[in-house]
């Protein structure tokens, strides 16, 4: 069982699905959607057992390892594997695959073949990023991901889709290039014969004194990687691509962006930037934490000021991801566990929030908060799902958002009380902007008479809301299995700088 190249099979499955979608005859929309759904569901079902196969107590960091030399002259290899952190992110991605397909069911009505093919390709490339153990392979997946995401925003997006798509592309590209330069520099500077992430890290840590990286080099190299990742997260002030991209993308695109793509940035910080250059991380941690806290507060204030439902949620992501960055740079075990847990929790909660906007937008074709109001009575099912989601996002104990925030803040407080205390202000603001959004859209008198006939959630929509909400609750009251899986993979990080 363990010899099965299950990770490659997952990637191939999705690529094959994308190919099959393209081969469907164009008028057969149902066949296109069916194929996409089957593929993504199969991918989820294949990846699900990994959670139980993964034994968090064993010593070696990576499981399900595959290694095939690729460009031997430079020591580049097609090398995949999962540790506790990447495993959870892979599962989050495969879970949201079928959800994204179902959410696009009626919303995408032109160029459906191309859409679903792009979507499956996007899923595959994101999975690749989380699976890659080779830096070049990581970089390749990272870049490949850009193309389908750009297309999804710029072709199937809202009114300003091209602007948003290009903005997204430019920001990410700028970061990628910095990463590329840093990557090449590391390779040349260390004289490594490999791009294996683990080996490079060991090599960097054990450079003989005469060839060791100077402090400046370490800081600059760290910046090279960290800025690329910070743009993706996004860390304030690199965040302004996000509201446009999220707002203009179609529902499935927003969901993938918020739930998974942003996590690539945080994952990169954890997997590459900090372990490679612990000295650089140490030097810049105060700045990073300040930016994280600013992001938490600033994102929340921006969310308070928005009139567009989707844009408000986009800004809430800036705030919530601030907690993740804070936890990563506080570098206590608790804060790190909290950061990773928060990535998952945010993925589900914000994914749900975007799905909900998508559901309502399909019915009314408006994202303006002012256009709603008083619809709770008309669509009670929707209102209930929205309520629970808002509470999860606001960090109500018993739902998963709380666990992440609590661990991040508690863990950060152990080393940096002031940063944690400022970050905790975000908890107050989150309640303010989320409940204001809820009240303005759901409560009060009915704003538009035509909304009296709004249809409540359909079975297709319930089919993904129920499992996602269930998972939100389970992770809230029984988070320990998840913390156990990621635990061992995070032990090493706080010890890097000593």
């Amino acid at each position, binding site marked *: 069982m363990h010899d099965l190249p299950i990770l490659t099979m997952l990637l191939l499955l999705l690529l094959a699905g994308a190919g099959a979608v393209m081969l469907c005859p164009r008028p057969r929309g149902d066949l296109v959607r069916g194929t996409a759904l089957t593929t993504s569901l199969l991918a989820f079902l294949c990846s699900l057992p990994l959670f139980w196969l993964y034994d968090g107590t064993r010593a070696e960091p990576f499981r399900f390892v595959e290694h095939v030399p690729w460009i031997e002259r430079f020591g580049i290899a097609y090398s995949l594997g999962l540790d506790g952190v990447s495993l959870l992110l892979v599962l989050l991605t495969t879970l949201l695959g079928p959800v994204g397909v179902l959410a696009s069911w009626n919303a995408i009505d032109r160029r459906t073949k191309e859409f679903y093919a792009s979507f499956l390709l996007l899923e595959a490339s994101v999975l690749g990023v989380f699976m890659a153990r080779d830096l070049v392979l990581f970089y390749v997946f990272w870049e490949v991901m850009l193309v389908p995401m750009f297309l999804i925003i710029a072709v199937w997006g809202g009114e300003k889709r091209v602007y948003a798509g290009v903005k997204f592309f430019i920001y990410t590209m700028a970061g990628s290039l910095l990463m590329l330069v840093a990557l090449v520099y590391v390779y040349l500077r260390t004289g490594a014969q490999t791009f294996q992430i683990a080996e490079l890290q060991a090599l960097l840590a054990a450079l003989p004194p005469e060839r060791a990286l100077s402090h400046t080099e370490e800081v600059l190299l760290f910046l090279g990687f960290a800025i690329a990742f910070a743009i993706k997260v996004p860390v304030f002030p690199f965040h302004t691509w996000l509201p446009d991209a999220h707002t203009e993308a179609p529902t499935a695109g927003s969901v993938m962006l918020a739930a998974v793509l942003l996590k690539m940035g945080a994952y990169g910080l954890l997997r590459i930037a900090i372990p490679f250059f612990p000295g650089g991380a140490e030097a810049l941690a105060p700045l990073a934490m300040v930016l994280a806290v600013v992001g938490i507060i600033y994102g929340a204030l921006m969310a308070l*000021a928005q009139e567009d439902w989707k844009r408000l949620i986009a800004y809430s992501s800036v705030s919530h991801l601030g907690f993740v960055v804070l936890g990563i740079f506080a570098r206590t075990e608790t804060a790190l566990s909290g950061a990773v847990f928060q990535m998952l929790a945010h993925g589900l909660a914000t994914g749900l929030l975007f799905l909900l906007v998508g559901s309502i937008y399909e019915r009314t074709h408006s994202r303006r908060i002012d256009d709603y109001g008083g619809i709770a009575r008309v669509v009670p099912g929707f209102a209930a799902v929205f309520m629970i989601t808002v509470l999860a996002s606001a960090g109500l104990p018993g739902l998963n958002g709380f666990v992440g925030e609590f661990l991040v803040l508690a863990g950060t407080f152990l080393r940096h009380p002031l940063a944690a205390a400022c970050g905790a202000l975000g908890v107050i603001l989150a309640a303010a902007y989320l409940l204001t959004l809820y009240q303005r859209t759901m409560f009060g008198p009915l704003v538009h008479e035509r909304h009296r006939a709004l249809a409540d959630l359909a079975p297709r929509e319930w089919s993904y809301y129920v499992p996602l909400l269930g998972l939100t609750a389970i992770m809230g009251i029984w988070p320990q299995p998840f913390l156990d899986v990621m635990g061992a993979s995070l032990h090493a990080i706080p010890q890097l700088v000593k």
Partner: protein
Amino acid sequence: MESKLALIPLLPLAGFAINGLVGKRLGKPLAALVALLGPAIAFVLSLEILVYLLQAGDATIQVRLWTWMATRDFSVEFAFAADRLTAVMLLVVTGVGSLIHLYSAEYMEGERRGSYARYFSYLNLFTAMMLVLVLGASLPLVFIGWEGVGLCSYLLIGYWYTNAEYASAGRKAFVVNRVGDFGFLLGMFVLLLAQAPAEGARSLELAHLNALAQVGGIEVGTLTTAAVLLFLGACGKSAQIPLHVWLPDAMAGPTPVSALIHAATMVTAGVYLVARLSGLFGAAPAALAVVAVVGVLTAFCAAVMAMTERDLKKVLAYSTISQLGYMFVGVATGVFAAGIFHLVTHAFFKALLFLGAGAVMHAMHTMDMRRLGGLRTKMPWTFWLFLIGAAALAGLPPTSGFFSKDEILAAALLGYHAGAGPLWLGVWVLGVLTALLTAFYIFRAVALTFLGEPLEPTDAHLHAHDPGWRMLVPLVVLGALAAAGGLLNVPHALGGHARFTEFLEPVLARQGGGVPLGHVAWLEWAGMGLTTLGGLLSAAAALLLYTRAPELLARLAAAALVRPWRAASEAKFWFDTAYQRYVVEPTRAGALALWEWVDVAVIDNAVGGLAQAARDLGRSLRSLQDGLLSRYTTYLAGGAVVVLMLVLGFI
């Protein structure tokens, strides 16, 4: 016993699930029955626990369910624990809770089927969360219940959500509570930080924290910080100044909700928290002084606010804030049992008053006392029961409120007498003044509602009548408890045995932090005599002024001494105005300005402008194209670096 303990919060939770999912299909009687069963069975189980603990002395029943979250720094178990203090709270929550569920069955009859089921599912969820709060063995577990009850409060205040104002009141309650919860969170963090990792895993278990504080395991300054932060949380939940502003608005909710959540149970959570952590607070005397000062100031100011209020429910809301202040004074004196006893009697008489007001609301469809009046003959049951509640609130003997309020005031006085400092004399004086104001405003309310004639009569007066049995039974039971509940704890000075205090003694002795005050009979008698006499006079004055002497009242109100106080009372000490002007509006305006000026104007334009510049530059440098991939990469990378540097520099 352990499994029963776990069952107690689970029962109402099951009711929540049933009514939440299929309540609409059940029909009203069945939905109400399902909802009532949960708290009622939980009440029986709580009685069993009480009986067991009466025999077992200072036993703690514990049940560990699973590990909630554990890292290498600390771990939190999903665990419940119950001792005698818990048992008292369990009985109040499930007992008063059951009565109010029954009352609601009739009170909410007019709602549509779906809304009726929704109401009961929320009420059940509230009960479950309150029980988690009470049973939680560690601070994070308590916090689940703590925020859970806040959520239910939010949902129930905004129950009639099509009214935008009501929905806003719910949101205000939640957000103001979040400010308190911010303190609660930080308090927990400080306690984690204060525990050296060498001493084994850090823990937030309540018993552990009390023990640690009592042996001096945490430095006093740190302990005080933690205690004050936790008290900030308590201020939010228990509506103490400066976080009291949400409670009057919370009266937008259905009246039984006000009785259960905003009088008898949820708002007392802060008092319970301080008593539960008596060892911790006791080891931080400065923190207890803060509790006492905030408590007594709140008690006094809220009583002043109630003096001019025209809405009957809001009078009761301010009086709740005021009485909660008393409870905090009680726990702050170090006589924790006094605070808890007042919590219990207040649950009886304030629930009684609210349910009485609910009966009036049910009959008259208004809470504006100008449109009420003269209901004594139309609603005799309601009148007499309300009168018992009013007497108890005013602390007139021999009602329950007399015994509990007096014990708190006696504790402050005895503390001063024992040399605890002039602070306690001040607390006592303000406490006595508050008692006089209390007697005045509640009998003012009695006079305006039930006596005389309405200032603005309405048709409803013709048809006003007492409610049916489902509303009357809870009223009668609570009336009996409010009248006679004081017998549970007759002080030694009056020849009693102080059984309630005795019952809690072992818990507080184990937790630590209690202050032995001894007894000085003449002082206690003097205090009692003063408040009783003052209360009676004050009540009589209110009845006279508001029924027979309007001219005298008008002259009094215009007196120079009274005018500034009346202005303060009518403006509720300007808290809401100040928050609106100095917190809410600046935040909104700031957010909008930041968005327009920083996010859109500076950052976006900087990036957009640079991208444009890069494009122009690219066009002019097209001649440099030579097809060398490596050179392109270098250009791109260099450009990107420059762009980013500039972006950073711009900010």
